[in-house]
């Protein structure tokens, strides 16, 4: 390589030095806050003052019941950041959390889990009356921060319909919990490969009487899978809420499925012992306590409201 080319590359690198320092996996998430915007917050003198204040009065959160923070964060998992350090950015998380508080002052976010039945009312400029209400079973809940998403599934006119909602989207007008319960699995995507009767709930279903600190029951229903082909290879996943599969075509296929189900790669029993895996996939307790303390400081406004509504 000749020297002029190296010089040229060096100047290019120097020009983009500010951005280079902040390159992480975050850059590839197009829907997140841009790095340029975040840099404004990083360099802002207001922000420095805030962090210094936070350092000065960083008292540990003292609760009578030590279980309170963990219970709160289980109910509201969107406050916890991504456990992958490549995606972490403290400033971005703080900015997103501030936006979440602002949204929570205007809308009531009920407690629900995967397996609960929800009804979401959305501002839809193309619908009659400018709003559309969709009732369905929550089959997925994920993504951190402001972009927390849920997927609702239902059957309308013998056709399975799924809607994905961003919970903190300003288009959402109301979130109602029709039935508060859990299922045996964390994700219920296997309902796509089940008979439609398992994911049918009438759109005008009456809501259960829900009160504060209500015990959450677990629905132990076991669904039956359709014969193959499936959308995913369910025989390789250790599903709790599914009956043992019986719809094989031949003896050979039956033996194969049995063999696959008993493979150690399916049960993954070593994962219970894998401390490093657990560490990588969870937020350390000190970190979650810090976040809880920050949330509780701002939560006075919307927490009172929540208590009134439940």
């Amino acid at each position, binding site marked *: 390589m000749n020297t002029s080319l190296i010089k040229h590359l060096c100047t290019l690198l120097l020009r983009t030095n500010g951005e280079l320092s902040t390159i992480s996996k975050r850059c590839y998430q197009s829907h997140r806050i841009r790095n340029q915007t975040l840099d404004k917050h990083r360099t802002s003198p207001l922000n420095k003052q805030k962090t210094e204040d936070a350092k000065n009065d960083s008292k540990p959160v003292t609760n009578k019941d030590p279980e309170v923070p963990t219970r709160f964060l289980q109910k509201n998992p969107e406050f916890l950041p991504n456990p992958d350090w490549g995606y972490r950015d403290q400033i971005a998380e703080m900015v997103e959390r501030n936006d979440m508080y602002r949204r929570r002052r205007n809308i009531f976010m009920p407690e629900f889990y995967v397996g609960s039945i929800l009804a979401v009312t959305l501002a*839809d400029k193309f619908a009659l009356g400018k709003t559309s209400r969709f009732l369905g079973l929550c089959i997925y809940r994920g993504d951190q921060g402001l972009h927390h998403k849920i997927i609702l599934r239902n059957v309308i006119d013998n056709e399975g319909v799924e809607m994905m909602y961003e919970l903190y989207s300003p288009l959402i007008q109301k979130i109602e919990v029709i039935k508060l319960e859990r299922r045996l699995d964390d994700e219920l995507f296997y309902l796509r490969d089940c008979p439609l009767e398992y994911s049918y709930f009438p759109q005008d279903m009456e809501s259960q009487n829900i009160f504060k600190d209500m015990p959450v029951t677990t629905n132990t229903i076991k669904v039956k899978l359709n014969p193959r082909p499936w959308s995913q290879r369910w025989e390789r996943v250790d599903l709790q809420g599914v009956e043992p599969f019986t719809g094989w075509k031949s003896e050979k296929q039956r033996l194969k499925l049995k063999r696959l189900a008993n493979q150690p790669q399916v049960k993954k029993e070593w994962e219970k012992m894998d401390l490093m895996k657990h560490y990588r996939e969870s937020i350390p307790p000190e970190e979650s306590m810090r976040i809880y303390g920050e949330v509780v400081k701002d939560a006075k406004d919307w927490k009172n409201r929540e208590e009134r509504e439940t």
Partner: protein
Amino acid sequence: MAQILKLLQVASSALPRVVQCNFRTSACLSELQKLSTVQVVDNSILGRSAVKRGKKAKIIHVYNSAGIGKIGDKVLLAICGEKKHGYIVGCKQKQKPNTPRFDNNNVVLVEENGTPTGTRIRVPIPSCLRGKDGEFTKILSIATKFV
């Protein structure tokens, strides 16, 4: 001679072999492109006869620059030995937030002049079709439900 044969064997094992996989390990994208099958959801005679025969309609052309059909795109279908135009009114593919995802790929048949072949649609229709450019008014007027 035996040595030559051995050499040949070694050489053949070193050559790259073309192995075709008939399985996949990741989830399917379920994109609608040429030769993908769809479900006709109106009550036209052609659509019903296709269901009776057990032969699904096949896409043979997608009228957009990408070549991958999304909700509201016009397609050319091969159905019961005929060529027919249709509009995609529901996809199996992952959708954006607030847009419905269906369990099947749904298509409504239209004539050459844009009028729908059937008189009723049996499944719910995404309401975002109302905002799309195209000749949807006649399709929307025969729809029964919106999500």
